């Protein structure tokens, strides 16, 4: 578990290039719901992902954040083509792979890899670590110089595991070590894009930092592009150059890290940021805004008309129910910072004159207590 890993420089240095590696346009995934008797008919659809636009440049790390059920994992699975899109277009390095067949996908599969959330269920318990890391090379018929076994040992060392543990089984490793095995497997084919779906959320706090550092090292030194899917805003902020915020199957705001975290415009981004409990290390008084939304995310089977956030939004007006706001650059936003809102917020996260507490119960409770104190 050395902290000083040396990685071979593989590709051109990191940094967003002019031509995006991956472009997603209008990506849509509806899961049909069947019902009725005696003949099952389609009675509705879970609109998990609806017209999502996203780009990932070569060597760039893009964060995808949102609450559970917002479609961020589905988006990741569509991009890796583990799921078949209902509509839209996925372009990878100039090729349209939206509906590519197995054969057409074969050469691209090795370039797009995935790291899964649960290090316990994503490794086959009956295979040794060596077999697990070697199989992608076997499947894709890749014969690295010096043989596959040597490459596996190199990979194990690279992710900070003992190469001698080649013949051990997954159950002999801890959660953090297993996640390292998952990373080694994803690196086995020298990918250009890694989709990491909540790679650290199943790990303990002291182990999370180890894995985040490993991923960051891999990303920066090998120039691999990352789509980093997570609900933990602090980890995403640490890891990503650009961030996209999803709500109920839609991207509501996207921009560079600084724009999203310090100059957010969409009310949902404001609410999300203000809900994250932050460790205040310094003496500075609490000067963050406080927003408490009411209720939960609505069902994606019958999403609200117009803007999907309007049912929980404090700025919602009639227009929000009838017109869906387009994802556009607002007048005083920076280049590349797009927001889908008719009535955007001020670009600051500083405390407001008055807290926004939409939860009627919480509001009443606070007023009561304020009265008695």
């Amino acid at each position, binding site marked *: 578990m050395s902290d000083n890993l040396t990685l071979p420089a593989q590709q051109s240095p990191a940094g967003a290039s002019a031509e995006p590696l991956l472009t997603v346009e209008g990506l849509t995934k509806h899961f049909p719901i069947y019902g009725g008797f005696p003949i099952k008919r389609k009675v509705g659809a879970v609109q998990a992902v609806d017209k999502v636009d996203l780009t990932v440049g070569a060597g760039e790390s893009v964060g995808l954040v949102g609450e559970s059920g917002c479609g961020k994992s589905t988006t990741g699975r569509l991009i890796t083509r583990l799921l078949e899109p209902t509509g839209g277009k996925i372009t990878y390095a100039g090729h349209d792979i939206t509906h590519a067949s197995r054969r057409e996908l074969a050469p691209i599969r090795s370039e797009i890899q995935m790291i899964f959330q649960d290090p316990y269920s994503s490794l086959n318990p009956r295979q040794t670590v060596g077999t697990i890391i070697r199989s992608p090379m076997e499947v894709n018929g890749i014969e690295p110089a010096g043989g596959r076994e040597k490459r596996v040992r190199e990979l194990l060392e690279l992710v900070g595991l003992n190469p001698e543990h080649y013949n051990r089984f997954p159950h002999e490793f801890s959660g953090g070590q297993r996640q390292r095995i998952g990373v080694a497997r994803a690196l086995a084919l020298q990918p250009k894009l890694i989709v990491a779906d909540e790679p650290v959320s199943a790990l303990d706090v*002291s182990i999370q930092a180890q894995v985040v550092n490993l991923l960051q090292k891999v990303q920066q030194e090998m120039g691999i592009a990352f789509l980093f899917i997570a609900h933990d805003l*602090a980890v995403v902020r640490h890891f990503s150059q650009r961030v996209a915020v999803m709500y109920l199957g839609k991207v509501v705001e996207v921009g560079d890290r600084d724009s999203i975290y310090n100059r957010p415009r969409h009310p949902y981004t404001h609410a999300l940021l203000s809900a994250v409990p932050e460790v205040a290390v310094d003496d500075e008084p609490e000067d963050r805004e406080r927003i408490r939304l009411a209720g939960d995310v609505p069902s994606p089977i019958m999403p609200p008309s117009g803007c999907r956030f309007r049912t929980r939004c404090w700025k919602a007006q009639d227009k929000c129910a009838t017109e869906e706001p387009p994802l556009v650059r607002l007048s005083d936003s920076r280049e590349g910072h797009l927001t889908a809102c008719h009535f955007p917020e001020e670009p600051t996260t500083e405390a407001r004159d008055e807290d926004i507490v939409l939860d009627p119960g919480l509001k009443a409770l606070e007023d009561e207590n304020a009265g008695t104190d």
Partner: protein
Amino acid sequence: MLLEVRDLHVEFRTRDGVAKAVNGVSYGVDAGETLAVLGESGSGKSVTAQTIMGILDTPPGKVTGGQILFEGRDLLTLKEEERRKVRGAGMAMIFQDALSSLNPVLTVGDQLGEMFTVHRGMSRKDARAKAVELMDRVRIPGARERVRQYPHQFSGGMRQRIMIAMAIALEPRLVIADEPTTALDVTVQAQVMDLLAELRREYRMGLILITHDLGVVADVADRIAVMYAGRIVETAPVHDIYKAPAHPYTRGLLDSIPRLDQKGRQLYAIKGLPPSLTRIPPGCAFHPRCPMARDVCRTDVPPLYEVTDAPSERGSACHFWRECLHG
């Protein structure tokens, strides 16, 4: 002091040997105070709470020493029947996973009402009315109609509110919340934490908040106790601990959180893994992972030293707490 845990020891008999889950934990909570118990999985934070509640599985678990004084009475010497009376009316617990803690085949009204029929001997009708009142109190919209619904008809945040309602039903003096918001989304988590904090103020309950999330703790707790390998390694008022930790483990945890002012840089990572509870290292259990470890750490178990340099009441189980505090 409302609750005082003194030198508690709990063991589990497992196939790999005896797992020492809790090794001499002492802490206390006053009425109206919030104590946060912070630790990673396997640190013994939940086992301590289960022992206080008297819901520890025995066997394999076994309390091998210590006292749990609740309003002056040692709970560990009480008969099971008497302890049951303390549970519910005296102290209550909120669990992490509300869905599996609620009975799926009973309506939430029945489950809330049960508190009153069992403990207070109320009629079913009166209990039902009480259930509606409770659901109103935790601000579940449309309580009168929803009281007849089953747990699966509620969302995650609403279910956790029902758990909270059940816990506060008999107005206990102490509530133990074991990772109450870990399974919830951030926006819902914020609602639930605020609700809990407000209810605690309203009823002047003592609250023990068990969590692994340093952020959640910072917002609501008065005092904090950090646990590692079944021991308390540091205890202090919340703000002091964040400003200047007096134990290298606490310091490591704080440094490993991604922060705004350090974006892009490498995170500090505590090396290695938490120890197995069947083979806790001799001396200070943290020494194999500690950047400050010296010979004495490998042999002598550090007691919880009083941190005398600090203006407030603090303790640290590190031989070199002074160095850690000032360095």
